[in-house]
């Protein structure tokens, strides 16, 4: 019993020592080795897209674990905020889930964008739906509300239940940029709106009439992904650019990255970082 208590106490002491690594770095021999780590005094501020947030947060967490003493602060704010903040110098790395706009690259020609992940949005229907193939035009007509019956796109004679995401969602943004923007139209207001990939999938899986779009990582056997203009959504078709509804997630630096920014980017683009990218349902670029 006493032994057990001692063990608990020593573990908790050890634990607290680990967290408080700034003070104890020189005291224990184990940590003394780490003080030679040139990455230990890195301090970085990252802000921007909420879509990139999980990647940046998780990478920052593991990076700080690997290099005790380093401090990386990650916050959201949106892609526009990310671009602006890095251009203004308020943060070291800005993140964006869309390509930089021409107005942004003109105003801040020094910005350098590094692609850290890819994301694709698959169009899914109920597994029992006979439709396996849609053209971009059909998809646009369905989402603008011009086509409201499955028989018009080669399916059975039932109403189409359009499932979409809330305004501001990164997945919706990706879909809108690729599908709705070319025809300058809004997604129909008659659609059912769900506020997560998970709920969208549950909705499509639960209704034979449904069509909905999902970030790639969420597609499973509950739903059926359809070909778009004959192209099956897959990591392959996103990476080679043939699948239309995809985007690159960016980390942006002001000028070429300095040594600490480079160290973090190397980490994100390295094996560990790219496996994190996969863990949070995006497609690795390397």
């Amino acid at each position: 019993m006493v032994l057990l208590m001692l063990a608990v106490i020593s573990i908790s002491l050890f634990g607290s020592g680990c967290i408080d690594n700034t003070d104890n770095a020189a005291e224990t021999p184990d940590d003394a080795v780490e003080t030679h780590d040139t990455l230990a005094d890195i301090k970085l501020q990252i802000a921007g897209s909420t879509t990139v947030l999980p990647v940046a947060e998780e990478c920052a967490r593991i990076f700080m674990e690997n290099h005790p003493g380093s401090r990386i602060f990650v916050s959201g704010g949106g892609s526009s905020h990310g671009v602006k903040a890095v251009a203004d110098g308020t943060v070291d790395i800005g993140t964006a889930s869309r390509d930089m706009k021409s107005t942004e690259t003109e105003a801040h020609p020094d910005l350098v964008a590094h692609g850290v992940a890819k994301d694709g949005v698959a169009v899914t229907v109920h597994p029992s739906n006979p439709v396996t193939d849609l053209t971009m035009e059909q998809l646009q007509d369905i989402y603008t509300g011009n086509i409201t019956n499955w028989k018009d796109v080669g399916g059975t004679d039932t109403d189409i239940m359009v499932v979409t995401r809330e305004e501001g969602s990164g997945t919706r943004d990706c879909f809108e940029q690729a599908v709705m923007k070319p025809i300058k139209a809004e997604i129909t207001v008659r659609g059912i709106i769900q506020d997560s990939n998970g709920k969208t999938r549950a909705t499509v899986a639960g209704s034979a009439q449904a069509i909905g779009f999902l970030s790639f990582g969420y597609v499973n056997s509950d739903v059926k992904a359809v070909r778009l203009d004959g192209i099956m959504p897959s990591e392959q078709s996103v990476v080679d650019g043939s699948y239309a509804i995809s985007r690159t997630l960016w980390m942006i630096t002001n000028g070429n990255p300095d040594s600490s920014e480079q160290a973090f980017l190397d980490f994100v683009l390295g094996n560990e970082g790219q496996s994190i990218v996969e863990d949070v349902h995006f497609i690795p670029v390397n």
Partner: protein
Amino acid sequence: MIRQTRERIIEALLFASAVTAVVIVLLIMVFLFKEGAPFLLKFGIHAFCLGMEWNPIAMDGEPSYGIFPMIVGSVYIAAGSLVLAVPLGISCAIFLVEIAPPWAAAIIRRGIELLVGIPSVVLGFFGLVLLVPLIRDSFGGFGFSILAGSIILAIMALPHIISISADAITAVPETYKQASLALGATRWHTIRNVILPAARSGIVAAVILGMGNSIGETMAVLMVTGNSPILPEPLYDVLDPVRTMTANIVIEMNYAAPGDHRQALFATGIVLFVMVAILNAISHRALKSRMGEGR
């Protein structure tokens, strides 16, 4: 001397705890209005509350912020839930207080308490996987509907309506009942013509409080109503999807960019806050008038 100071300190502490709740409400109000009011004034209260179109991130052209369909949606779903829950709740309360033998009343009260304990998300999920397909298959439409939201909310409102109306019925003086029975009235006559009228204001308060709760409820509702920011068409079609004000805030707040979009959500909060405050004030009125009557 020491006793007096101690007394003072304790009094001060008690006073501090008492004002804490008030201060918290005030702070929330200040924050809510600070965030949302500038937008409301800029965009126009009229245009915001009566605007028909909600499109904060426009693909082409100006964004629009109209929450009228959501005000209608909130009222619609809350009213629908009351239509379902009030008759059931009041009947249950009457049975509990006037008719049920003590052992049955105990069991029913336990069950009602359990109902209160079910987290709203669980009810919402139940609605999503069971109720929505059921409505779709039996009535048509997509299943995501005012009806689904109302049923889920009715289940949530039921315990509150039952317990407050049961209290109101219990508070009716025993002498009223005995006088009525002594005059030869039957039990049902007594309930309908003596007890219910005497408990009326308490029951009204229960209904209005239930309405306030229903309008403020979020998670369960947004899972089953489809959240389309449009008016049902035709207006009485309870199988159409709607979005409530609470759902509007919850589903868009995560990603709303700072600026107009986010402020518009806070402004939605202000409208909701004002509506619930008014309902609460009305129900307090009703409760108070009952107190007056009882004496």
